[in-house]
């Protein structure tokens, strides 16, 4: 029996809201959790398009879709504000460590390499 769309969307919304909570906390640990939550939400939504029962989509599914949409917009805004904050911080650090370019912009910082292992 296929999962109905409303329940599937609600499960995705829970993941998105978890990501929002992590984004609000904004600690490095919380932000690390956020990435996973958003990936899980995107994957569940991608799979749900084929797997969920959309034919009997009810009013509840529409309400859930609307809530999910609001949640995604909220996550987007929080990601955007966090991104702006850290980009600005990076510019300040770049100027402090590397000075300014001939055009008056903060000198680019050497790229920070991330190393990750999965097993």
């Amino acid at each position: 029996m296929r999962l109905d769309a409303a329940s599937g969307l609600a499960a995705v919304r829970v993941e998105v809201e978890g990501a929002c909570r992590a984004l609000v906390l904004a600690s490095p640990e919380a932000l690390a959790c956020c990435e996973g939550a958003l990936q899980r939400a995107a994957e569940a939504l991608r799979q749900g398009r084929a797997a969920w029962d959309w034919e009997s989509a009810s009013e509840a599914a529409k309400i859930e879709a609307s809530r999910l949409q609001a949640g995604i917009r909220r996550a987007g805004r929080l990601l955007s504000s966090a991104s702006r904050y850290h980009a600005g911080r990076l510019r300040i650090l770049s100027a402090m460590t590397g000075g300014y370019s001939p055009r008056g912009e903060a000198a680019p910082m050497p790229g920070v390499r991330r190393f990750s292992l999965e097993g």
Partner: protein
Amino acid sequence: MPGLISSLYVQAGAINAFEQAIAVTSANVSNASTPGYASQTQTLVAVPEDIGQGATGGVEAGPVVSSRDHYADQAVWNQQTALGGSTQSVDSLTSLQSLFNVTGTSGISTALSSLYQSFSAWGQTPSDSTAQQAVLTAAGNLATAFQQTASGLASAATTAQAQLQQTVNQVNTLVGQLQQLNTLAMGSNGNDSGLDAQINSAIENLSQYIPVSATEQPDGTYTVMLDGQTPLVIGSQQFPLSFDMYQPADATNTDAPPLAQVIDANGTDITSDITGGQLGALLNFRNTVLPSYIGDGTQAGSLNTMAQQFADTVNGILTSGNISDASADGTTSAVPGVPLFTYDTTNATNVAASLAVSSTITPGQLAAIDPGPPEVSNGIPLALTQLENPESSADEINGESYTAAFGDMATQAGNLLNDATEDQQVAQSALTQAQNLQQQQSGVDLDQQAVTLVQYQSSYEANAEMITVLNQLMQDTINILEPGTT
């Protein structure tokens, strides 16, 4: 003896330094929840040590370093501005939405529907005085509904105007407090963390009302600007804002409701610079949202346009008809219809507020006969009934029926409120996010302070113990040199 004395001197200096460090840590713990407070750190500086040259070494208290992060502070102020703006928008738009009720038993939508029903009933019995009276009553109700909506919008404009004045006053009061705090800061040479907290708390309060940016000066004062352009306070000098209502230079209707403007200390209109905060939201509501309904010097507003077009259309249909036919022998000519609605024709922004049923019309003066050809005895009521579901562009407003047009106005108000409500929720989250980021940079971490306190306490106790030992040694030395004394 000189060695012991210099050791005592070193230990006393160390105790003094650790006392200051404990006091700074204590202040941090006490102010952990104080708005605007940034964690302080007492630096410790090693004293040069060269016994041969008489330099005794030891430690002394260096400068107290603040963890204040202006970048994180600015991020919080920006989010406060966003939250202040969306909260004000929700407040203003909630009152607006209540004027555009399309589901209740009152208001323009219901009155319009009742008038169409009365036209339809009149069309079935065109000479029935009860049906004619019902048309006049329904038309009167519609006119009253337009008047009430216009009155509600005018009242919202008056409220917004009063709120704008209060907000500008509040901004000036907060900037005045900042000016006083700056004056105090000049006397403290920028070393007062409590004063610094008060200044930052005041700027954060201010940021709810207007977009602000602030720069700390070497003397500890803050230069505060509106949107980075208009100075509000520099050192001990305040630049007050003022508020005024005006008619734009390109106004074609000088009797229209005026617009609001905010003026800086130099007399420059800075309204367009204030795009955020409570003041920005109020200006948008007063200068953009409300005029779209009730008009201003350059536009009539959708409510007035609808009222005028509806009244003109109904009057046009009625006056194209006849109350009675000409007599067959030609001795009496046909009696033409008379207008149903009247309104103020001298002011396009006053149509809805002045819409009324003609004071001279009687039920029997409602023209039902469409002279044609062919003549239709109930052609006029049928044409009026047709307005509900128009088939001709002449019966439409902006390509749709009057009912749909009013629905669009209500939808616009509802959408604005929904957007503002969602913005408010997101802005609250974004503010918490910015405050958390600020806390990570300059907040008081109580766990860290507890560790620091224990370290300083241990150092203090160790130095105190050293003094006790040195004191005992000196006492022993004195006893050796002067036996018999205690």
